[in-house]
């Protein structure tokens, strides 16, 4: 994957397939402390301990269309190649939380890329699911919670074109306020 935001899109879809109602995505980073941490947490069907071990194996998948499952292994590799760490915790019937921690300054660090586009596409393509996206840097943080938007929208779907446009503008604006200068997005 060329951008970590693409790994996020990929792994978040596991949450969608696990029939989650709520998916929390957070990107925390600090230049001062030289780390970036991505967390994807869902309230989907969860996995047994044995299944958790299996998803780390690239030659395991629940699909029948092909024999490999690279989503989680690629995400894990992206973190570990920076000297960071990777963790999946899951409980059957409760949900799954995936955490990837990166050493930001490492030469093998993949850029985060357009994370806002990932969030927008996830909302666009899964208007029935709620997403909570949080991003924090040394300069501050913001949260987009589709449950709050739903309250205002009173039944109007999140995938209405004007709503998606509002979401995109909101994310752009908020991102600019917590990212100093050059590296946008």
């Amino acid at each position, binding site marked *: 994957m060329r951008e970590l935001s693409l790994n996020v899109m990929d792994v978040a879809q596991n949450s969608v397939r696990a029939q989650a109602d709520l998916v929390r995505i957070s990107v925390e980073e600090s230049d001062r402390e030289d780390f970036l941490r991505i967390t994807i947490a869902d309230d989907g069907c969860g996995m047994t301990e044995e299944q958790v071990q299996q998803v780390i194996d690239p030659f395991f998948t629940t699909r029948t269309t*092909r024999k490999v499952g690279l989503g989680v292994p690629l995400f894990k590799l992206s973190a570990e190649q920076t000297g960071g760490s990777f963790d999946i915790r899951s409980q059957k019937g409760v949900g799954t939380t995936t955490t990837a921690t990166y050493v930001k300054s490492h030469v093998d660090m993949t850029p985060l890329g357009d994370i806002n586009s990932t969030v927008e*596409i996830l909302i666009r*393509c899964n208007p029935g699911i709620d997403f909570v996206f949080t991003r924090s840097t040394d300069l501050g943080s913001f949260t987009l919670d589709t449950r709050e938007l739903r309250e205002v929208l009173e039944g109007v779907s999140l995938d209405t*074109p*004007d709503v998606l446009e509002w979401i995109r503008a909101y994310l752009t604006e908020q991102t600019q306020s917590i990212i100093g200068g050059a590296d946008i997005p």
Partner: protein
Amino acid sequence: MKSLAELKAIRDKARAELDLRKENPNAARVLVGMATCGIAAGARPVLNAFVEEIAKRGLTNDITVTQTGCIGICQYEPVVEIEIPGQEKVTYVKVAPEMVSKIVNDHLVNKNVVTEYTIGALTN
């Protein structure tokens, strides 16, 4: 700043247009393959290109763009399937953002399949 008041205005406008949207059983669907293989091959800019092109032409009520999983032809990703009610599904392969406006114009608007971009053209 983007405010919730603005979102309320969007809600009221959307409600006024809602009937129009619901009454459209003939809406076409654009399905972009967005599993690991599709994403790695560049599906996200392709999906965004469809969304932009369709918005530019004012067709958001007639065409929906959404993602789908892997259909097992990872070597041909990014794969885009187009479903128009009453017509056979068409599968485009190795789609790049530059190809999108032609697909929207020729296929979705004028109902002429862009044969050279389809899976049939590639495997023959």
